[in-house]
């Protein structure tokens, strides 16, 4: 049973003359971790907005096809009703801050207040989310006095605390330090193991490769491929779509090392290590 089904989705922003999304069709099961990749302007954020219902209900424009979350057709429900089910971490954390809240704590509780959750549970969820993103010590700080990465952590914590069934993350770790980024990926993977469906937009292909169950390539609004990371990054035409394979894949491709079982190039450090270490031993 699919959690999300996207069928021949087409979309044009108002006052533009091109399709930002042009015939996207895929489905994802509950708990799947889906990576979305493609060059700047290819339509990744627009697709995120379409899953969250902001396209078309907030942005308007012309829309065709459909997006289903369970048995709900996204364009037929209020954005505010859908956000209980689908949470979004926007591309630019600087835009996510409401600006109306005085502290980090209030900022994170903002989304929860509208959900009608008992006070006690609210407090517990906020504390957990802040702990997870390592920002507990800033809870009384004004959000605008945080560093860039701390602000991004707050944006992620706000969504995680709401415990939606689907989480859409649009380049959520672009300003995190390397270990913080890894921790966020592990935390998100844990959520997906609990059954939460994840959509992750990311330009860091090593992370996409090691965490995604399936990867969607978009180019110029069109769906190019939807497959496992191994299959995706073994393609010969990634250049055309402005995508660089993970460092491990590039190395193994140049050295002609495919995984004999799958016929694909390795995409993670562990896979590459297993294939290459035999070589080193022979030298």
């Amino acid at each position, binding site marked *: 049973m699919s959690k999300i089904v996207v069928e021949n989705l087409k979309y044009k922003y108002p006052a533009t003359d091109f399709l930002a999304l042009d015939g996207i069709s895929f489905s994802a099961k509950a708990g799947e971790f889906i990576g979305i990749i*493609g*060059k*700047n*302007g290819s339509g990744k*954020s627009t697709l995120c907005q379409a899953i969250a219902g902001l396209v078309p209900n907030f942005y308007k424009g012309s829309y065709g096809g459909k997006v289903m979350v369970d048995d709900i057709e996204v364009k037929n429900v209020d954005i505010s009703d859908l956000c209980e089910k689908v949470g979004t971490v926007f*591309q*630019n954390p*600087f*835009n996510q801050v409401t600006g109306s809240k005085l502290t980090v704590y209030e900022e994170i509780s903002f989304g929860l207040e509208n959900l009608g959750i008992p006070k006690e549970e609210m407090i517990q969820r906020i504390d957990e989310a802040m702990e997870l993103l390592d920002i507990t010590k800033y809870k009384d700080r004004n959000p605008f*006095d945080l*560093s*860039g*990465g*701390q602000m991004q*952590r707050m944006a992620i914590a706000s969504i995680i605390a709401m415990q939606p069934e689907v989480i859409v993350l649009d*380049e959520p770790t*672009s*300003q*995190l*330090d*390397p*270990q*913080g*980024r*890894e921790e966020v990926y592990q935390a998100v993977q844990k959520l997906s193991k609990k059954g939460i469906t994840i959509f992750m937009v990311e*330009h*860091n292909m*090593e992370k996409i490769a090691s965490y995604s169950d399936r990867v969607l390539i978009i180019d110029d609004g069109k769906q190019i491929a939807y497959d496992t990371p191994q299959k995706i990054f073994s393609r010969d035409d990634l250049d055309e779509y*402005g*995508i*660089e394979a*993970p*460092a*491990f894949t*590039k*190395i193994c491709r*140049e*050295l002609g090392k495919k995984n004999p079982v799958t016929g694909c190039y390795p995409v993670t*450090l562990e896979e*590459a*290590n297993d294939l*290459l*270490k035999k070589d*080193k031993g022979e*030298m």
Partner: protein
Amino acid sequence: MDNNKILEMKALHFSYTEGDEILKGLDFVIDERSTAIIGQNGAGKTTFVKLLKGLLRPTSGSIHFEGNDIANMTVAQLAKHIGMVFQNPNDQIFKNRVIDEVMFGPLKIGMAESVAKQKADEALELVGLKDLAEKNPYDLGLSSRKLVAIASIIAMDTKVIIFDEPTIAQDYHGKELIKSVIRKLRFEGKTVITIIHDMDFVADTFERAIVFAKGNILLDGTTRDVFAKEDILKEAYLEQPNVTKLCQSLGYDEVFLTTEEFITYQKAKAK
């Protein structure tokens, strides 16, 4: 060599609020090498470069630009020598036309209109945004807006150029473009300081890396030396570049910084 001291920090301390010190006595020199500043979220990187621009002033200690204490210079005077691309482009951009935005800085530091126009055109060309000159920056996506912010600073033609997280939102092509911009600026004799969390980018692009941790400098050296120190990097919430990690797990003693380096090495060995 004295002329290599572009910027010198002497016992530099800074706090936003009393009792919570962000920079805890930095003593170091920025020279002509292209330099990456790396470190944990909240380590004080953005704070440090705001001090270089005079946007914040030290709680104690001093910063010297080409030998002069910048305490004696106004923000406007400093702007002629030190340009900075903000982490958040929204903090920087406020004009309604890309070309006006990019010309604003050059005009502000006293360039003639015609020179400013020429510098702005060149900068937009360099970052590949020539066709967007007439657009409204607010209609652009984050990646293009960041490039507008970069062009605006390059057009000012300052001796020192600071990039705070230049690769945010950039795709593969955008990152390669920014690498080439940094190399070009370095070649032209500019001093380029870049704050960045992308270790592969650092390994490929910079001569020197400085690791900030909790208001101190934990490591400072050539990129290769810094990325050899796995344990210290961990302590600073950093990682080695991907290829460095792989080669380490394969048991190589050499420190490889780029995939090309490792591939070349392997191919040579196979012969």
